[in-house]
């Protein structure tokens, strides 16, 4: 007689987010349950990264209101909670965009995140695919109330492949988790505390290991950028193509960013939440530095076809697939919202001006300032 295996059927938890009910496995966070629903109810997440253990809880953009803790204990939670680090309970009722309190807090958080940000999108390589840019358009106010000098840092090359622009860092800690969990050594981290906290290597060490490039992919902003790509092109002029190659170090599945036949950069494949996508066989989607930085010829790759970027941002607005400069203004692309806070990246040049240092401008920089060349021109970084 066959042995009777009594397998515990995992009980599913029902959770209601903005009046939409989903069933998820116990141990799922509110954020991931909301992602299962998708759309507007999903809270924005700037620091949480589902593939990095221990991430989340820091940026506070994902705050939600828990109107009822569970069926067993239906009391509401007294404070807003970070949905990325709070697990669902059966019968939990969550309010995200249906809560005034949440929307108000979220607006506050966006303002805090932008407080010390140089707003230098026209010279930033991340523009067009930046999560902070998206966040501010979707959840932010139209202007800043901050009237003080922003934090200033020197640009720093941390190793041969990565440049660090600390002025843009939102201290999400993701890159430190990548270094801890994906690479074999971590030589960088957060120095100092509070507003002075900064990402740095300990005494100008170079980050040099086979998987360090993934730090660029997880960085939600333009703080860590690809030195082999910097200032070469705007992401929305490039055409993303899925491609793969046999690699003995990583999964070898990538997205190539091409202009004509020229490969401008190589990144991991990212899902609609901007996270690195696992391979169908379950292999992690992180890619090695050889694939990312050394294989820049189309002939290095087997092309699978164009990649559709699902994220709600400039690159996914569908205007970048050709190589022509788009005629639409950013306001049109962003559905009528006028950029007051972030500069209009479309009115500026195709390629970022490396020589301009907009963080040195006091108060919010505008496209006008930029086009009139009023940005402080600094000598190129070392």
């Amino acid at each position: 007689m066959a042995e009777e295996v009594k397998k515990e059927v995992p009980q599913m938890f029902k959770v209601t987010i903005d009046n939409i009910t989903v069933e998820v496995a116990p141990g799922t966070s509110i954020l991931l349950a909301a992602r299962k629903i998708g759309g507007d109810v999903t809270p924005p997440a700037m620091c949480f990264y589902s593939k990095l253990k221990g991430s989340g809880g820091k940026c506070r953009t994902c705050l939600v209101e828990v109107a009822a803790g569970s069926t067993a204990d239906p009391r509401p939670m007294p404070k807003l909670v970070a949905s990325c680090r709070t697990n669902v309970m059966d019968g939990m009722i969550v309010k995200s965009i249906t809560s005034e309190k949440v929307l108000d807090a979220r607006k506050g958080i966006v303002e805090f995140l932008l407080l010390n940000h140089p707003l230098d999108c026209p010279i930033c390589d991340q523009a067009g695919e930046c999560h902070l840019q998206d966040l501010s358009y979707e959840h932010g106010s139209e202007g800043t109330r901050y009237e003080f000098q922003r934090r200033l840092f020197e640009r720093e090359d941390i190793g041969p492949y990565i440049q660090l622009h600390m002025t843009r860092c939102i201290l999400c800690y993701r890159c430190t988790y990548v270094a801890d969990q994906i690479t074999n050594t971590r030589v960088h981290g957060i120095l100092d505390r509070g507003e002075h906290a900064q990402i740095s290597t300990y005494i100008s060490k170079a980050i040099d290991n086979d998987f360090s490039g993934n730090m660029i992919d997880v960085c939600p902003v333009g703080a860590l950028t690809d030195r082999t790509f910097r200032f070469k092109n705007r992401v929305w002029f490039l055409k993303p193509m899925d491609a793969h190659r046999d690699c003995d170090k990583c999964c070898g599945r990538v997205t190539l960013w091409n202009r004509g036949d020229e490969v401008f950069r190589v990144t991991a494949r990212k899902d609609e939440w901007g996270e690195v996508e696992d391979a169908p066989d379950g292999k992690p989607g992180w890619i090695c530095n050889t694939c990312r930085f050394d294989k820049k010829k189309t002939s290095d790759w087997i092309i699978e076809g164009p990649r559709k970027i699902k994220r709600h941002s400039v690159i996914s607005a569908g205007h970048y697939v050709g190589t022509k400069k788009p005629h639409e203004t950013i306001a049109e692309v962003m559905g009528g919202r006028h950029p007051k806070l972030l500069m209009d990246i479309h009115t500026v040049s195709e390629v970022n001006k490396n020589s301009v240092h907009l963080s040195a401008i006091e108060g919010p920089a505008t496209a006008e300032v930029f086009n009139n060349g009023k940005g402080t021109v600094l000598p190129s970084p070392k």
Partner: protein
Amino acid sequence: MKLLLDKANVEGIRFYEAYRKNGGYSSVEKAFKMAPADIVEEVKKSGLRGRGGAGFPTGLKWSFLAKPEGIPRYLVCNADESEPGTFKDRYLMEFLPHLLIEGLIISSFALGSNRTYIYIRGEYAWIPDILEQAIYEANQNGWLGKNILGSGFDCQIYVQRGAGAYICGEETALIESLEGKRGNPRIKPPFPAIKGLWDCPTVVNNVETLAAIVPIINMGGIEYAKIGIGKSTGTKLISACGNINKPGVYEIDMTISVEEFIYSDEYCGGIPNGKRLKACIPGGSSVPILPANLLLKTAKGETRYMNYESLSDGGFATGSMMGSGGFIVLDEDQCVVRNTLTLARFYHHESCGQCSPCREGTGWMKRVLYNIEYGKGKLSDIDLLWDIQRKIEGNTICPLGDAAAWPVAAAIRHFRDEFEWHVLNPEESQVRNFGLAHYADAREVVA
């Protein structure tokens, strides 16, 4: 009534011989004849509330400690005392180190902690030597080490110095720091009672809380609970400072009124130089500041007492908190705007920078306050400050965000006219203070 400091003035009490002669360590002898669970019960009955600031019932906290088989449990004594205005733990450790060690031994036994840590702030540079001397003496006399009093229980106490960060007083940041990591508060849950030091169940208690275990065991929880009033049982150390005649550490039983505490010669001895009381921060820098009229009497016109319930009567609208017992008195010559700026500067400097509201908001509040204080403010800045603090409060990882927001909120709530005066009189505010207003203490000045 004195339970902790009663022998503070005995010659040589800092050393073992005098301490033992005066009845020291008798509570250990008593406790080791009890079952650990009964000690926890005794502490529950005593009604003792944590003296580190939050006032959480200690016995209840102890009963939450997870006790899985085969995993060590830890007791950690929080001696990081960095709250501006609070210096009671320092006094205890400096003058009565054996009292703390005695409390730690019983508590370690009750909780099953074989390795107990004292995490002390780096700036208390001379105190670790005093504590280590006391630990050495306790070891020499068989109160620590292997098989204490033949009970089969082993315990050792280690002193760890911090590097000087207020945030390392937050219990999970303290644990991170103790593990040798950057002192960032952890995201809770899990709570330390389940996963604390080295991921093992851990209890973190304040110095004064752990010292209070000694009289609780000596006199019994029920007797201890008879001292004080309501849920404010036992005695409390208050470190009083600011514009008073006799600053210092006082042990009070929590039945005396705030007025008595400030004006009686037994305690603060009144305000010096014939000045009048303007305001007071009754529980360390994090708690709301109160103007004199709301300090001495509650909004309902009842006398306010020095205990947990009475100090928080009226909520944040008209009350404050017991906090960590740092009692800061401001006389009529003090400027509330400047005082608030000083506190904002502190929280800006001490934020760990992990979460965005606190990292960015504390600096913003400081800069806006700076403008107001130095005559460069706008009227709209006052509402801006209110909005910033509102967006920090409750939205952060650890309570430091709240602690930074509350003082600003309370200052604006009660002293808005002074803020406005600063903005509207930018030049005058640089040469004189706003002084007393309607909220002044109506008491006659005795010249």
